[in-house]
Each structure stands twice: as C-alpha cells, then as structure tokens.
C-alpha cells in the first residue's frame, strides 16, 4: 500500500516539502517546452519535412476538434485546451513509458487542473455575455433552480477532478496488484489498456468536458 502515497522527494527551506508529483510535473513540463521549441524550428511553407507534416496533422486535428465544440469565434481558448490535453496525455501515460508514477494519481494535481478549468469556464461566460447576464443566468428558467445552478459551479470541477483522479488511481492500483500477483508478461497487455488507452481517453474526456461546459456557459 505504500505505493499509493506521494512521497516527499526533497525539502526546500521556505516552501516546504516538494512531493513526487510536483517533480514529475516539472519533468513533463520541461520535456514539453523543449519539444515545442525544437519541433517548431525550420518550419517551411514549401517542401515541408516529415516532422512538420506530423505536427500539422496533430495540431490540425486538435483545432478541428475544439472548433466543432466551441466554434470559430472562440479560437482564443484553443491554446490552453490543447496544452492541457498534451500535459494530461503525457502525464497519464508516463507510467509505462518512463517508469514514474503518474502525477494525475495525486489528488492535488487534478484539483489544481479542475480549479483552472472552473475559472476558465466562468471567465468565458462572463467575457461573452457580460457580468450582468452571467449573474442573471443563475435564475434562468425559474428562480427556484438558483441554488442548484450555483452548486453546479462547484460540482462541475469537482466531478472533473474526481473522474480523472479516480480513473488514474484505479488503473494504478489494478496494475500494482497485478504486478505483485503475476510479475511476468501478463501486465504488458493490461498496461496497454489501463495506462495508455484509459489515460489518453481520460485526457480527451477532461478537455472535452471543459470545452463543453464553456460552450454551455457561453450560450
């Protein structure tokens, strides 16, 4: 059961303990920043290379995907959503690829992401329709539903956070149990389902739901 805890890796003098998930998050951040600097060098309009074609296909897919949900006029939110998608995709699949524990297994990481999503959802609504309309929409069909609508502001990020955390922790626990029971060969196909497929699916679902809630808020 000690695999479930997040250990403190080292202690800084003022801030306090730095946990494992923070360090893994830093590593992922560094890799993503380096990749995004390296991959966009030497981009050409004519005669593009293989890397550029793959990059364009991936970014084009992500932009089309968000454009289908949010519409063309909300392009300003796409970079944030694609960044979260990349970060979650990297951090959910890091366990079989690099051997770190996935940082999304820590409740604090998913809670921070969900709070950021909550701010973005409410901000997009306020920016589109104005503060007055945003305050009014809580009593929208009938004023009786106002408590439920206000609760929804908190429940939406809570469910985002718990869904991601629960899925990653469940996959992690199942993989650890399986590794203690059968350490050879059997964990490989199971790892493909629990770590890679489920991790990518949860990253997709997280940004999909964030975009969907934003769209709902902007109506």
């Amino acid at each position, binding site marked *: 059961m000690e695999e479930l805890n997040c250990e403190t890796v080292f202690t800084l003098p003022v801030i306090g303990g730095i946990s494992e998930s923070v360090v893994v998050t830093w590593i992922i951040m560094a890799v993503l920043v380096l990749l995004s600097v390296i991959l966009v060098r030497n981009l050409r309009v004519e005669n593009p290379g293989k890397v550029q074609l793959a990059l364009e296909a991936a970014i084009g897919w992500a932009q089309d995907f968000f454009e289908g949900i949010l519409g063309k006029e909300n392009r300003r939110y796409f970079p944030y959503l694609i960044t979260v998608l990349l970060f979650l995709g990297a951090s959910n699949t890091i366990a079989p690829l690099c051997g770190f524990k996935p940082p999304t297994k820590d409740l604090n990481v998913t809670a921070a992401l969900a709070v950021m999503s909550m701010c973005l959802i409410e901000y997009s609504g306020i920016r589109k329709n104005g503060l007055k309309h945003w305050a009014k929409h809580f009593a929208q069909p009938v004023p009786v539903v106002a408590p439920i609508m206000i609760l929804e502001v908190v429940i939406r990020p809570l469910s985002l956070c*718990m869904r991601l*955390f629960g899925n990653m922790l469940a996959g992690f626990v199942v993989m650890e149990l399986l590794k203690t029971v059968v350490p050879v060969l059997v964990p490989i196909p199971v790892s493909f389902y629990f770590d890679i497929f489920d991790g990518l*699916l949860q990253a997709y*679902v997280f940004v*999909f*739901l964030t975009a969907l809630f934003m769209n709902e808020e902007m109506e």
Partner: protein
Amino acid sequence: METLIAIGAGIAVLTGIGAGIGIGLATAKATEAIARQPEAEGKISKTLILGCALAEATAIYGFIIGLLIIFFLQ
C-alpha cells in the same frame, strides 16, 4: 471492526453495477444507431464517449468512497 470496514468498502463499490448497466445500454443503442446510419458514426461515437465518461463517474465515486472508508476508518 475490521470486518465491518471491509464490508462497508465492498458495499460502496456496488455503485459499479449502475455504471455497468448504464454504459452497456448506451453502447447497445450506439451500435444500433451506427448500424442504421453509418455516416453519422463520428457524432455518435463522440456522444457515446461523453455519456460513458459521465456514467462512469458514478462508479469512480463509489471507488473513491471505498478508498476513503479503508484509509480513514482504520
């Protein structure tokens, strides 16, 4: 006491029944819909994934409650 905690955690995980039935029904309807209208497959699978994620959340809540029971009642 230990036994009662284990039983409680086991009962919390019974939420998985609801999520299983829900996802099963959704997938059955989605396959029917794709068989009837194969050209709408993209939209149907997008909606199916969303519905599955929302239905699955209940099972995940049960799992988290089970974990909390085991860790905090000991």
